């Protein structure tokens, strides 16, 4: 096997110094995951999309395997250094620290040599290793739960004797899913005490969709429209049913900015999701020979539609713009790529006439598990403030609005025996690769017998140099070692003086210990 390490690293790895635990240690430092993203990074969860700073323990988030996994910890770090802002084609921007591992394909050395791509293997690469033109791997949501019926379990209001009998279950069929799409785009509800209205507003040119809604509701629920009227250029269709209105409010939200697709619908088999997309696009979307576009002011809905399109393996691009009027932002999703727009037209049930495209260079593509799309630009900036990282069960990764991110699994524990400001003994335990073990071993040697002040001057660079260097991808191990020493001294000072190390900001602090 190729030896990636210096003799010094191998010596400390094979014969680690000071392994184990100290009885009644004076200071203990535990570190891991020295990698982070900025606080407003949007993380895909199992029912919504949230800023990383708001993600709670036990919430499930999407992993790079396309499945949902539990969040075990949310780390918050004070950070002062470079932040890499990766702008990904089609998907958007995510900011990370330089060492954060991102699932990618190193294609930038092979521009216009697409045949060479098939010999490349995807890998977790540091943000600072990535370049413009490298391909990001973005997971296709994989979890599927098929449901045939849902309960219509809205109780009848107390004084309601005259309302029509509604079925107790609703079949999850093409009709219902298309209706859901129509509601999410064009529907509204008014819910009062025992009155309620489910309404739809269609443009006068879309009377055919309005008719579709009338027939679907007739077939599914046996209800006739209560009111159809013209209003400006639109046509309004209303059903007076308190229970129906509440059902739609509960399932899909009320008001255009709050509409969401229920999570169980996001898990339906992709074939069943086609009528949902059909209803959605007929409502708030448009399609012509050149491109298709969907516009919404609901952030959640916009991301959910992206997930639906990923499942259909349709290439899209998304754009956030300032909206007119009272709304803050509006979200547009475009489908332009030849195959994708044809697929979409088929789903919507319209015909488009596209001239065969001139051969354009491959920009994005799908395989069975991932959407591959290039990095368009990387900007580096200085940042001072909080950064975040998640620990995720099983798959150790999570997905932002633009990247698949890894939470690296090295864990290092440093224990110190301290007397009169001098480190009498230091011991460590480390789970990890050769470099992780060697750096912790040499760090204990370098601080033993030293005063606390001296030990605090230990830098990760000094650790790496003492080992005659580390491979670049293993440099983060030396950062761990430096942090472990500082964290242990910080712990000691907190125990003895009640105050932590002045000026020391641990690279991470678990949120559940300090945040609540």
């Amino acid at each position, binding site marked *: *096997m*190729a*030896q*990636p*390490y210096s003799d010094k690293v*191998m010596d400390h*790895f*094979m014969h*680690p110094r000071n*392994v*184990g635990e100290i009885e009644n240690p004076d200071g203990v430092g*535990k570190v891991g995951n020295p990698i982070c993203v900025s606080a407003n990074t949007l993380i895909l969860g199992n029912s919504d999309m949230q800023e990383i700073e708001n993600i709670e323990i036990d919430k499930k988030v999407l992993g790079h*395997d396309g499945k949902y996994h539990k969040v075990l910890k949310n780390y918050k770090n004070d950070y002062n250094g470079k932040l890499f802002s990766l702008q990904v084609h089609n998907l958007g921007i995510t900011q990370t620290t330089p060492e954060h*591992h991102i699932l990618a394909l190193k294609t930038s050395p092979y521009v216009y040599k697409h045949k060479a791509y098939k010999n490349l*293997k995807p*890998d*977790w690469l540091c943000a600072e290793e990535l370049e413009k033109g490298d391909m990001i791997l973005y997971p296709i949501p994989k979890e599927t739960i098929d449901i045939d019926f849902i309960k219509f379990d809205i109780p009848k209001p107390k004084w309601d004797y005259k309302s029509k009998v509604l079925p107790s279950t609703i079949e999850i069929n093409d009709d219902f899913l298309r209706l859901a799409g129509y509601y999410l785009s064009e529907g509204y509800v008014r819910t009062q005490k025992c009155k309620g209205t489910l309404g739809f507003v269609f443009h006068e040119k879309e009377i055919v969709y309005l008719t579709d809604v009338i027939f679907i509701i007739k077939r599914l629920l046996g209800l006739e429209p209560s009111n159809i009227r013209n209003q400006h250029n639109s046509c309004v269709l209303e059903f007076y049913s308190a229970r129906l209105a509440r059902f739609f409010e509960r399932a899909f939200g009320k008001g255009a900015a709050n509409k969401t697709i229920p999570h169980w619908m996001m898990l339906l088999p992709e074939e069943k999701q086609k009528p949902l997309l059909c209803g959605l696009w007929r409502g708030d979307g448009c399609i012509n020979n050149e491109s298709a576009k969907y516009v919404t002011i609901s952030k959640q809905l916009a991301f959910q539609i992206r997930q639906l399109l990923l499942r259909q393996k349709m290439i899209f691009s998304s754009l956030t713009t300032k909206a007119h009027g009272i709304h803050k932002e509006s979200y547009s999703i475009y489908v332009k790529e030849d195959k994708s727009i044809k697929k979409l037209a088929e789903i919507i049930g319209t015909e488009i006439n596209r001239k065969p495209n001139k051969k354009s260079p491959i920009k994005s593509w799908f395989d069975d598990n991932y959407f591959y799309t290039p990095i368009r630009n990387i900007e580096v900036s200085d940042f001072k403030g909080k950064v975040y990282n998640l620990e995720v*069960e*099983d*798959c*150790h990764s999570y997905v932002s609005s633009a990247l698949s991110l*890894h939470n*690296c*699994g090295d*864990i*290092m*524990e440093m224990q110190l025996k301290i007397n009169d400001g001098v480190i009498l003994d230091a011991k460590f*335990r*480390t*789970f*990890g*690769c*050769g470099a*992780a*073990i060697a750096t912790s071993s040499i760090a204990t040697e370098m601080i033993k017998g030293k005063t606390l002040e001296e030990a605090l001057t230990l830098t990760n660079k000094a650790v790496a140099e003492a080992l005659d260097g580390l*491979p670049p*991808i293993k440099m983060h191990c030396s950062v761990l070692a430096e942090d472990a020493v500082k964290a242990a001294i910080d712990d000691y000072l907190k125990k003895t003086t009640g105050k932590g190390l002045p000026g020391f900001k641990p690279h991470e602090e678990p949120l559940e210990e300090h945040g609540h």
Partner: protein
Amino acid sequence: MVPFLHGGGQEKNRRASTENVPDIVGMGVACEMAIEEMAAEALRETALRDKLIKGILDRIPDVILNGHPTNRLPNNVNVAIKYVEGESILLNLDMMGIAGSSGSACTSGSLEPSHVLLAIGLPHEIAHGSLRLTPGRQTTDDDINYVLETLPPIIDKLRAMSPMYKKGK
């Protein structure tokens, strides 16, 4: 019809140049040997494989055999060793003259464990501790004994170092 290779007039001008004769002969000899020895060699290696699997499972606690106990290649041993990391097992084995491969390709610069192991349902941290050993034609019974003597102390040493491992758990 366009020639496959241009140049000499071999194969009626359709495939220029002389064929790779040594490889063709080699392939023939390899097939000959396989026909003669494959059945017996597979049996011999299956025995070594099973001895190695049983030995590892008996001597090291918290080990999972990856894959089916018997429906597997005659020469494939693949185990997940909990609480330790693949690269550190490999480096240690390498120092003792044993060549293996790991569930994680840590040394190759990748931090991602084997996608096959993940696909058969192992969680990441356990897939990271996976070890593959493959006996071959030159492997002897003594070699297996040597591995079985060498591996357990290595795992003990690494587990003693691992904060994830708690004795008696």
